[in-house]
């Protein structure tokens, strides 16, 4: 119980002039941030702004090139994560680090710095119970972690950090896997802990709503530099976003037309087992008209992946099927060409590209076997393939050393741009999209969304499956909620209420 005994209130941490260089790349440039004891401090920034690098320097995962870390009033040398832990610094990751098959109590005990060879579980459990009694919140300790909901796991993770005696906690996008309700509860708990002086929290996030609702102070990083720190009470969303993105020009929001036409995509009586084989995906009727975006909201793992796999031809449904413009549709090469159905699957590098093939080849996936007038071709036209790739790369601003470079050498934003370039040229009747902005930075997100809106305005039927509710609320004309493999809620854009949608997402209408 060494960790628990050492816990004695929130710590302040100050980074002074922290710089981090990887070879020629400057990831952090003279960043100074002070996190006061007992506050909830948000760290905002785009992808690649240096947030993760910064906290990794604090935690000793990286040895910073220059700068000091002051914990409390003492300058400390954070050589490695062990040293950080010894000073009371802890971190909760985006993805869970608990052992799924062990219970909460077992997870907590085995995480201790020094675990006895033979564990006296009875004594440990009693000590744990005493510890949990002193906490303002609790989590189930006797159930295997794999049976807990995401929110409970995240709470258990925090409980574990407190049990280990951490007094300064870094959280890396702690709510990305939670429902809005769970997120609010977790962040509320953390804020209460900071208010009561037990803990200081530094939270990486990109959700402005969470910053203004829960954080006391916010610091913003941009391109490795600290661009400002301020009290949340003094800042509105507009000024925080401006600090994050700087002078970059974000594509203006595309106008939304209002012409809704005939049904382009219809899914009927679809039944297919989910990937565990234990549950079933059941969609009785889902239709998307041309000129509208239908958004399917839901927490990951509620059947969206399986639905997407059926729609893209990666999975054969047990029964039921898809109709495009009233005609039955099986995603074959000929049907894909004839009907103008395009797909943007999630994680484009994993689902839509061959990472070892070149950018030019990846851009040709849809067209390599067709002549300009749509007939089959046997011989590849390699010069045409390359010049078309250069043209697309320029039009969609894909940054690559050359079109001959392998896809794997492109950054995430450029991979997504390449897939957009491939799928969004030509006449589009139906567009099926899943989590298109996952892992992209601010400017890229705006660009992707504006392109999706342009496709809608040109008269295509768009189905958007997304785990990001903000994205659904921004883009969709009609919002459906998927939970436990079924569509459980439907609302028009005009009467959408995030709280109601969130409850349906959580399966508690």
């Amino acid at each position, binding site marked *: 119980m060494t960790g628990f005994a050492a816990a004695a209130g929130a710590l302040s941490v100050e980074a002074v002039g922290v710089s981090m260089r990887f070879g020629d790349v400057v990831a952090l440039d003279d960043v100074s941030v002070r996190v006061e004891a007992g506050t909830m401090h948000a760290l905002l920034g785009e992808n690649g702004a240096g947030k993760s690098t910064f906290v990794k320097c604090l935690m000793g995962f990286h040895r910073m090139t220059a700068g000091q870390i002051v914990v409390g009033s003492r300058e400390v040398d954070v050589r490695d994560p062990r040293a950080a832990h010894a000073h009371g610094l802890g971190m909760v990751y985006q993805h869970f680090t608990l052992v799924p098959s062990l219970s909460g109590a077992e997870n907590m005990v085995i995480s201790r710095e020094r675990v006895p060879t033979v564990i006296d579980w009875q004594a440990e459990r009693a000590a744990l119970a005493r510890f949990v009694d002193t906490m303002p919140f609790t989590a189930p300790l006797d159930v295997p972690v794999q049976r807990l909901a995401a929110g409970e796991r995240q709470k258990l993770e925090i409980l574990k950090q407190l049990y280990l005696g951490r007094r300064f906690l870094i959280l890396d996008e702690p709510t990305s896997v939670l429902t809005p309700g769970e997120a609010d509860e977790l962040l509320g708990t953390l804020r209460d802990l900071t208010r009561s002086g037990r803990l200081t929290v530094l939270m990486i996030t990109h959700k402005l709503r969470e910053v203004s609702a829960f954080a006391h102070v916010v610091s913003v990083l941009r391109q490795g530099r600290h661009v400002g720190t301020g009290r949340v009470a003094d800042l509105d969303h507009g000024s925080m976003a401006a600090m994050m993105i700087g002078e970059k020009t974000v594509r203006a929001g595309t106008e939304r037309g209002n012409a809704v036409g005939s049904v382009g995509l219809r899914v009927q009586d679809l039944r297919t087992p989910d990937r565990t084989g234990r549950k079933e995906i059941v969609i009785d009727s889902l239709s998307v008209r041309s000129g509208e975006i239908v958004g399917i909201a839901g927490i990951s793992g509620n059947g969206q992946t399986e639905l997407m796999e059926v729609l893209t031809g990666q999975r054969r449904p047990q029964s039921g099927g898809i109709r495009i413009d009233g005609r039955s549709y099986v995603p074959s090469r000929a049907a894909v060409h004839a009907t103008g159905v395009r797909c943007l699957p999630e994680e484009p590098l994993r689902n839509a590209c061959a990472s070892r093939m070149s950018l030019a080849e990846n851009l040709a996936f849809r067209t390599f076997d067709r002549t300009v007038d749509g007939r089959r071709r046997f011989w590849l036209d390699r010069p045409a393939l390359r010049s078309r790739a250069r043209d697309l*790369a320029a039009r969609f601003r894909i940054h690559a050393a050359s079109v001959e470079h392998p896809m794997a050498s492109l950054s995430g934003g450029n991979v997504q741009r390449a897939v957009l370039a491939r799928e969004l040229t030509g006449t589009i009747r139906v567009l099926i999209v899943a989590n298109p902005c996952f892992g992209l930075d601010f400017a890229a997100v705006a660009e992707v969304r504006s392109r999706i809106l342009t496709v809608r305005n040109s008269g295509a039927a768009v189905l958007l499956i997304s785990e990001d509710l903000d994205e659904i609320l921004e883009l969709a004309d009609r919002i459906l909620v998927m939970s436990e493999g079924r569509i459980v809620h439907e609302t028009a854009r005009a009467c959408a209420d995030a709280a109601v949608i969130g409850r349906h997402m959580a399966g508690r209408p």
Partner: protein
Amino acid sequence: MTAAAMHGAALSVLDGGLAAVRRRGEAVIIPVGALVAGLLAFAIFLAFIGRSPVEFYGLVYKAAFGSAFSWENTLARTAPLLLAALCTALPARLGMIMIGGEGAIVLGGVAAGVFAMSWPALPGALGIAGMAAAAALAGGIWIGAIGLVRHVRGVNETIASLLMAYVAVALMNHLVEGPFRDAGSLNKPSTAPLADGFRTGTIPGFDVHWGLAIGIAACVLCWILLERTSWGFAARIVGGNVRAAHVQGLPVGRLVVGFSVLAGSLAGIAGMVEVAAVHGAANASLAAGYGYTGILIAFLARHHMLAIIPVATLLAGFDAASGLVQRRMDLPDATVLVLQGMVFVSILAGEALHGRLTWLRGPARS
């Protein structure tokens, strides 16, 4: 970031330039380095058992590439290796590790022998074409069936093809010792000796049989198929990312089975060439391990159709030298197998280096 942006601006200028050389550099340096490392390891092994590595490699050079005669000997052995290597390299481009080429080779040989027995009166050219067709059919069905069960039932093609190779050898032994045994073959059960018109002769002006020309032509045609046609492109998408291939609506099943059939047919033809050009009848000599050496060649060539040609020649040279090495240095004939094994392990280890030779890369990546 700025360097990356500059590279983006120089998009077209750099195309096919230095960057491409750097990129391809890795694909050449790693296998060549692995080969050299394997040869060095074997040299240490030789020194350890008290033999001179210098003498060994000198003898290998002399026996394999030192004279016109040794070149002919080497190239005659190269022929079946080319086709056997294609049987592993082609499926590999679709993401399959098919190591059962030996099975397709022996069955192709038997099919060719049985065809020649059944229609001995055919004119020579027709007979040879018929033997080739029978051999391609037998090999194609054998490997194609493995591609099919892999696609339909998710059966592991590596294990399946290996085990099927043992079945094929047993089947061959049964056929040449039983139903198709020639009464005249006494101590080595064989099919009936081929009529003279069914024997493929040597390439004019060159004491190497036609198998070499067939093998090289097959490598070149497979390269054209993969790199220059839309079928090959589709196959490479399947190999690059089968999920993306499904999303693009490509007929993944047809491609997987089709390329497996093609790979098996080529191995089958290797068996037919052995029968028609070397043995003159189908018998147990068909199971000479060409299929297994082919795996090594395909991996050394990184499944590149044209790289197979020099690599197969090199390994055929080792093979050709084994007799001489055995006699002159008093080493067991398995010595060459030890060498092959060391090279193979070295190549597998080299696979782990891909993408890690940072000094080979351009100054910036976006």
